[in-house]
């Protein structure tokens, strides 16, 4: 398909980490079928080291939503919670070698779903992280603030 590059196509056609972790340490759901994209991410966390040991996704959505979920889960496995929270949607897009402009929101969705899963983990375990300050998992806006807006605030 001409609209996606080879890497996006590969992550869509052969997605990594599809599924649902049983008894996950954190679960995040973002989007809705009405919007056309809905993502669920489940994570397992090594609580002593604060390291994400596994992540799985389930996504209702287009090729780029599935590719973004696949890439995002790949990127957080083996990372500490703080490192995972540092990942921006732009990094997901970069790792995919770019997305069509109109599909950038798919990467935002993946970024938000990951933060939601970590937020859930933090809530259940009474932990606080700098990267979650001001984060609202129920924020139903389909857009997270971009880097510039973050620094301005």
């Amino acid at each position, binding site marked *: *398909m001409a609209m996606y590059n080879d890497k996006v196509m590969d992550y*869509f*056609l052969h*997605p990594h980490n*599809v599924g649902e972790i049983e008894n996950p340490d954190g679960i995040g759901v973002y989007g809705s*079928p*009405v919007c*056309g994209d809905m993502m669920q991410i489940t994570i397992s966390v090594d609580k002593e080291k604060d390291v994400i040991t596994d992540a799985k996704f*389930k996504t209702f959505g287009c090729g780029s*939503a599935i590719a973004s979920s696949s890439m995002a889960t790949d990127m957080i496995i083996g990372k500490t919670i703080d490192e995972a929270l540092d990942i921006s949607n732009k990094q997901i897009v970069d790792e995919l070698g770019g997305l069509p402009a109109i599909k950038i929101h798919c990467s935002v969705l993946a970024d938000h779903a990951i933060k939601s899963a970590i937020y859930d983990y933090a809530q259940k375990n009474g932990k606080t992280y700098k990267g979650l300050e001001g984060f609202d998992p129920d924020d139903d806006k389909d857009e997270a603030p971009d880097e510039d807006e973050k620094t301005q605030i």
Partner: protein
Amino acid sequence: MRQVYLDYSATTPVKKEVVDEMLPYFSEKFGNPSSLYDLGQEAAAGVAKARGRVAHLIGADPAEVFFTSCGSEADNWTFFGVTDAQSAKGKHVITSEIEHHAILHSGEYLAKRGVDVTYLPVDHEGRVHPEDLEKAIRPDTVLVSIMLVNNEVGTVQPIKELAAVAHKHGITFHSDAVQGLGNVPIDVNDMGVDLMSFSSHKIYGPKGVGALYIRKGTKISNYLHGGAQESSRRAGTENTAGIVGFGKAAELAEQNLDDHIKKVSGLRDYFIEQVKKNIPDVIVNGTMEGRHPGNANITFKYIEGESILILLNEKGISISTGSACSSKSLAPSHVLTALGIPVELIHGSIRFTVGDFTTKEDLDYTIECLTEIVKHLREISSVNEKKGW
């Protein structure tokens, strides 16, 4: 890899007989139809023959058929030409919510210039009701435009009844019949339309040619100004080869109409039956009563259309989707929305259109691939029956 084309409503391959008849008009019979010498008149004769063939297919007088560059031009001409010629009478146009964008965007353009446009709703089958038209008519209404066959769900409109309502009030009636030509019988006199738009490339003819039928006496201004082509109604040197191709395609469409409808609807019905048999949680959108013979618009619950499209493309199968994710505007199909279909179901809708070159083997291959793809995407999907929508 096997290639299966199931998007005949988007466009059709040009038939060999059509190409053969077009070819001499590029380099041998290349004259300008407006030139008086033999070479020019030879080209003019080709255009005249084509006009006769298109007119015959729709039951019109050849003098009432005007060639355009495409169906969209015919639609634009209607909207601008009628509102201009009848501006003294009023500035109100009635159309429907499920028209092609050539109509909807012409309406939007006119609305910015002081014309009132009313968009009639449709029922869940995609049909416009004559009583709704009756209610929408105003003393200043100058044009009613309702498509003959919808391009997404294939619903055939009760054009004869709708035209009768418009005429009862002395209003010009237009129908965009781009999807209807060659797929449903058309008789402009029986239907009672004043204007009708057509396109060549939907009936196995070349792209870049369309036509507007204009009943004698209809008040409509010219849209393209210049030379005296098309009886001084539409300027511009004729696309001779294209028009000749359209004419041949029209002749073939008329000869094949009954067989085409029978063959294509048989394949389409088989396809729908096999989809229902092999794939759970599917919904056929629109109605099976009065539908484009080749159209099957199907929602696959819990998954999204662009994903299906890409995976089918990987298997060499071409289809289209009403999903927002596949459109440049990220807006879901306005047609399926007007039918009252919930947006989450629109995202999972696919339009399959079979045509003259489709075989049962093509459909069996498609069913096989589709069954796998839907299963795969549902395994990935975060929504299902239990989780709800």
